[in-house]
């Protein structure tokens, strides 16, 4: 079946009412970003010496990395376990991960007091630091993702390099370089795919180790010795829902038929993955006897319950329903719930669960902080749209000039 669909640039207008609204959000966020870079972190954020980390770390970085997990889970499925059925979603998943990690790096730059020294960890090493490992792994993985994307760029421009004017003499060399990259990557891709999965496993789990050093400052519901394992398991579980959600949104936005045959099959993995995550989460609770906290009515307890019930238990049940797997609408809802659950988990662990020893007043993200986070996400969506318009990422039915027969065939064969 997939032989009839081919990844091609989408022929649509970039501008729609929604993209204009997103562009507004980007500009709105940039205003606060500008203030932050000119007047310092204190001018925009509610961060202080009691609360050194806020949503720029909790959401933009911790949740951002988790939600970019679609890249490595799909790469493992398609290239390592060699499930060809899912080939069509490999490129969208790769693009999401690439953009996701790019914006993790941008999010970090907003938060770093000395953002212009962001490259320091490359040659100033501290092997004891969890953050160092996360930083190096994220930088390495981001590079791997760009390399994995090279074949897409090569495919788009081979034989179509048409620079004008004085640059025209470059046409041939550039084309040769692209062909060279294409040939090399054909042979070397497997190495980068595996490397990407290994790097992802390392830093996805290590982000769970980050808050361990905060000790008693983190609420016991989250301060678990197996937090790294649970972070890795939740990253496994959230990868495919991200791919499903974004595939459904882009087919709707571009007026394409949802790739339900692929997405339903993909959805079947989510139930078991969520179940394993839930088992560890509850097992950890039983072993450490943290259920005593469920007796009290407090913000952390309520947030934990929402995270588990709405973000894990309900979508887990949904993903085991055939009806949900076959319906674009319900599949979308179930995926959104998983994404919400993992996002909330990271937010809880980094922000809600953090209680300073000497708290003057509780932290709540400022309007500026929220605006920057929203702006960053909006920019990410816009870039995704732009890149699928330019590059062959999304698979579409191949239109043969002779007749529409074969396209119809695709609808028949299921």
């Amino acid at each position: 079946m997939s032989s009839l669909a081919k990844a091609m640039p989408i022929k649509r207008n970039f501008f729609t009412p929604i993209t204009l609204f997103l562009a507004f959000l980007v500009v709105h966020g940039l205003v606060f970003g500008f203030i932050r870079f000119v007047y310092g972190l204190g001018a925009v954020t509610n961060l202080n010496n009691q609360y050194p980390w806020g949503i720029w770390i909790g959401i933009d970085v911790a949740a951002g990395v988790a939600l970019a997990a679609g890249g490595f889970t799909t790469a493992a499925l398609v290239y390592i376990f060699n499930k060809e059925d899912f080939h069509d979603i490999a490129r969208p998943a790769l693009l999401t991960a690439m953009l996701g990690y790019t914006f993790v790096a941008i999010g970090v730059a907003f938060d770093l007091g000395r953002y212009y020294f962001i490259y320091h960890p490359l040659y100033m090493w501290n092997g004891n630091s969890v953050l160092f490992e996360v930083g190096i792994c994220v930088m390495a993985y981001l590079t791997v993702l760009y390399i994995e994307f090279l074949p897409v760029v090569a495919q788009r421009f081979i034989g179509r390099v048409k620079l004008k004017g004085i640059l025209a003499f470059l046409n041939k060399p550039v084309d040769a370089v692209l062909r060279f990259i294409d040939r090399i990557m054909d042979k070397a891709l497997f190495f980068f795919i595996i490397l990407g999965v290994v790097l992802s496993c390392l830093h996805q789990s290590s982000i769970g180790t980050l808050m361990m050093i905060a000790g008693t400052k983190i609420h016991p519901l989250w301060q678990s010795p197996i937090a790294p394992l649970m972070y890795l398991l939740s990253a496994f579980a959230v990868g495919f829902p991200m791919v499903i959600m974004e595939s459904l949104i882009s087919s709707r936005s571009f007026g394409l038929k949802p790739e339900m045959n692929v997405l339903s099959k993909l959805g079947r993995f989510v139930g078991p993955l969520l179940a394993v995550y839930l088992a560890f989460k509850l097992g950890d609770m039983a072993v450490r006897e943290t259920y005593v906290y469920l007796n009290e009515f407090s913000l952390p307890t309520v947030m934990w319950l929402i995270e588990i019930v709405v973000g894990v238990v309900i979508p887990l049940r949904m993903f085991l329903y055939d009806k949900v797997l076959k319906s674009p609408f319900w599949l979308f809802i179930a995926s959104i719930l998983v994404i919400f659950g993992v996002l909330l988990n990271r937010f809880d662990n980094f922000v809600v669960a953090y209680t300073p020893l000497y708290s003057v007043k509780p932290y709540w993200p400022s309007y500026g902080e929220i605006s920057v986070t929203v702006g960053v996400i909006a920019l990410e969506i816009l870039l995704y749209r732009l890149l699928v318009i330019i590059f062959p990422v999304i698979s579409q039915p191949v239109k043969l000039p002779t007749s529409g027969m074969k396209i119809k065939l695709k609808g028949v064969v299921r």
Partner: protein
Amino acid sequence: MNQSRRNFFKTAGVIGASIAGAKPTMAAAESKNILSDDRMGVLVDTTRCIGCRRCEFACREAHDIDAGQMLDYDDRSVFDTLRRPEVDSLTVVNEFKNGEPAAEAINVKVQCMHCDHPACASACIVGAITKQQNGAVIWDTDKCIGCRYCMVACPFQIPAFEYQKAIQPRLMKCDFCFSRTSQGGIPACVEICPMEVLTYGKRYELVKLARKRIEQNPEKYVNHIYGETEVGGTSWLYLAGKDFKDLALPAHGSAPAPGASESLQHGIFKYFIPPISLFAILGGIMWLSKNKEETGE
């Protein structure tokens, strides 16, 4: 944990490694601290402190922070609220009520404890914070990238960050007057203290001195030297006539603060065996699944 079992897990790939490392072993942190026997410390005898805050003045003077007039420090209204170290005050004195006569109030000076196994140094992404041979935990402005993970890690909530600065914001904390103490001098606060609250000396001698004071005046002190074992020991030690919890000094166990996260980290990366084995396993699966497909067709 049993050593051979540990080794088994380490070779069993990354998931195995996270399980092995995740066991709450509180094994001593593997940080390569130079803990010299001659490292220095300060003993703070809170029973002697009168809350004159001369130490705050001297500290500012020593660190090029606008200190104002010394007389300003006689204002005792600042004791109405609990104060914490800030970017412009690396040490602060707080006052705690203790029964009716106001004179009985207890004054407690707060600053960086200069841990023997500092969580901030373990956490720092670029190794900008280091434990020095003389006991000081100091910060290197040339390395810092301003991530503030040290502040997340600190078990005493000491470091302060210059949030109002857009360029070269600094991490401000007591540096044990390193420029003086590394040259054989004594910290500014110790020098100015008129009540001999602060005693600067070799840490092990200070522990002896503190124990002697408790023995000689058991009714005056609680039998606890705060900092002797807390988070693996600190260079600054405290004596008090009241439970330390009531003096806003957090109750910590004797395990070094970075312990669990460091051993987990080292478990995952020991000789790079787990990542490399994971790479090999995934490569094997890839090869097998490709082969299977080719023979199947």
